[in-house]
């Protein structure tokens, strides 16, 4: 056993070696570069170095650019699909699901941009052959399926990606999720289009290359949408439903079969199976676990009414059934390694509540300052329990901050709360505005960028 392992605190994950954010960035850069490099090198290997590309003669570069953007759009779309697999554990090296999700999101953006440019370049490239050739691309004959499948795939991509990038305002979560299912058919149709019109590869090579990428994407899609709801979701029964404040409830769940092993700060997807629920029955939503790993097999989940589904859950009763899938995320890490600063706002306190409850169970040594941000004392629904835990746990301090009394969190308040900010690992969870403000304040006060960890469930 290595010394690091020996000092591990039960119920917490060890700190990741190196910043996870940087690893996400490299993964994204790698995945963004892989298709263009492969395409360009591959095309040069099969068809030789392309004839002179003359900048002043667009005819020489519009056609290759059109082909390249098409290849990139399809490759990035398939890579984004592969990353949607959401297997518990797969997100760990990247610092949690949110890091993986960000890479997926940016790949989707790159695919969409490339798919929009692809027809534009090819239409322009057809200009020297006269308007007839251009129109044949725009209004393909029914038998020219390789062409119209391209337009169809682009249409579907716009349909399922426009909400993700909020082209027409913020979409309703369920509508967005439903539209996002079109990613499957869109990729399939785009694959048919890409294989039929592959010009830089022989048909055999095209089928092998795209077939391989397509199969990996199909496996991820099929697991996520077909198998995981059946295999990865575990049934739990609601034992208690405690109202913490107006619009905030904590559910205590006991497993009907196997429980879910988790560490402090992780989250699960919860799917209620309660037909009389007013909204969101059989819809999955992510919620952070608020109980301590030491309480297993029981799991507690704090839920704030933020939308239709979480609003409907406020009125559930004991005895009902829900399904959990997870755990995901890697927000908090072992407090045995370095002193920590926790800043939580609103329902963003839940990962810290889970960690504090765990510390009270295991009585571990720690040096943690928790700043509890709320509008006022009536909205600080976990405060009393946390203060109670802090009295029992050596090294845990809880400092409330009430916005209505004290205004925005500021540098003076932070410095007073913890003098050694440059030595502390900082964890911030809450509304996006709080995270942005805190990141700016902490950076100004000397906390290194790599030591600031944030988590916001702002998935769009």
């Amino acid at each position: 056993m290595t010394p690091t392992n020996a000092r591990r605190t039960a119920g917490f994950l060890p700190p990741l070696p190196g910043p996870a954010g940087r690893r996400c960035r490299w993964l994204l850069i790698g995945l963004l570069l892989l298709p263009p490099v492969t395409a360009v090198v591959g095309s040069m290997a099969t068809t030789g170095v392309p004839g002179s590309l003359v900048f002043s003669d667009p005819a020489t570069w519009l056609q290759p650019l059109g082909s390249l953007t098409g290849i990139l759009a399809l490759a990035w779309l398939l890579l984004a699909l592969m990353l949607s697999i959401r297997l518990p554990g797969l997100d760990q090296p990247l610092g949690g699901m949110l890091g993986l999700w960000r890479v997926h999101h940016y790949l989707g953006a790159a695919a969409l941009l490339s798919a929009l440019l692809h027809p534009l370049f090819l239409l322009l490239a057809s200009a020297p052959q006269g308007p007839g050739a251009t129109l044949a691309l725009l209004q393909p004959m029914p038998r020219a399926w390789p062409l119209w499948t391209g337009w169809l795939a682009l249409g579907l991509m716009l349909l399922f990606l426009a909400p993700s990038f909020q082209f027409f305002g913020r979409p309703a979560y369920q509508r967005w999720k439903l539209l996002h299912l079109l990613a499957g058919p869109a990729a399939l149709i785009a694959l048919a289009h890409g294989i039929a019109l592959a010009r830089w590869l022989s048909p055999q090579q095209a089928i092998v290359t795209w077939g391989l990428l397509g199969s990996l994407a199909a496996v991820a899609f099929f697991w996520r949408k077909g198998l995981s709801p059946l295999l990865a979701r575990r049934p739990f029964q609601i034992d208690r439903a405690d109202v913490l404040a107006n619009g905030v409830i904590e559910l205590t769940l006991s497993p009907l079969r196997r429980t879910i092993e988790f560490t402090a700060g992780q989250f699960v997807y919860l799917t209620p199976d309660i037909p009389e629920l007013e909204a969101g029955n059989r819809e999955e939503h992510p919620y952070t676990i608020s109980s301590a790993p030491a309480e297993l097999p029981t799991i507690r989940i704090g839920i704030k009414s933020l939308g239709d589904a979480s609003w409907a859950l406020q009125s559930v009763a004991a005895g009902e059934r829900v399904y959990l899938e997870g755990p995901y995320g890697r927000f908090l890490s072992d407090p045995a390694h370095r002193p920590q600063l926790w800043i939580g706002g609103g329902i963003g306190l839940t990962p810290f509540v889970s960690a504090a409850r765990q510390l009270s169970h295991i009585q571990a040594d720690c040096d943690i300052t928790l700043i509890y941000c709320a509008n006022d004392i009536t909205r600080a629904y976990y405060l009393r329990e946390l203060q109670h835990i802090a009295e029992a746990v050596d090294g845990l301090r809880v400092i409330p901050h009430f916005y209505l009394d004290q205004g925005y969190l500021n540098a003076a308040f932070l410095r007073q709360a913890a003098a050694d900010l440059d030595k502390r690992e900082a964890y911030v969870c809450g509304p996006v505005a709080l995270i942005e403000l805190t990141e700016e304040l902490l950076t100004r006060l000397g906390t290194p960028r790599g030591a600031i960890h944030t988590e916001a469930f702002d998935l769009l």
Partner: protein
Amino acid sequence: MNQFLYTAFVACIAGIVSIWLYAALIVTPPQAAAEAADEASLRTISKAELARHDHAESCWKAIDGLVYDFTDYIPEHPTPPAVMLRWCGKEASEAYHTKGYGSPHSPAADAMLPDYLIGRLETNN
């Protein structure tokens, strides 16, 4: 990023629609073009004459009974020139319809053919 993507989306769609309108407004309808190239007015080209134009400087090909002069088009074809040059001076219908591996040319390519039409291949009888 959302703003950038939305701008790109609007710009690309506007570009595609503009090209569409432009092409639709100036195009000679394909039927009219076909009528204009009155089949009777096409010169009959013998197989021997076709066979003489078998090189990059003068590349004729017969496709479905019609003869095309592709000399000027070879540099614009997406494949390396060798792919097209192989069929100069020859009956190239099968090569055109299968591209050598079973997938046909696009309608865009079909639409380009009349621009290169120079005659009709003599029939044996």
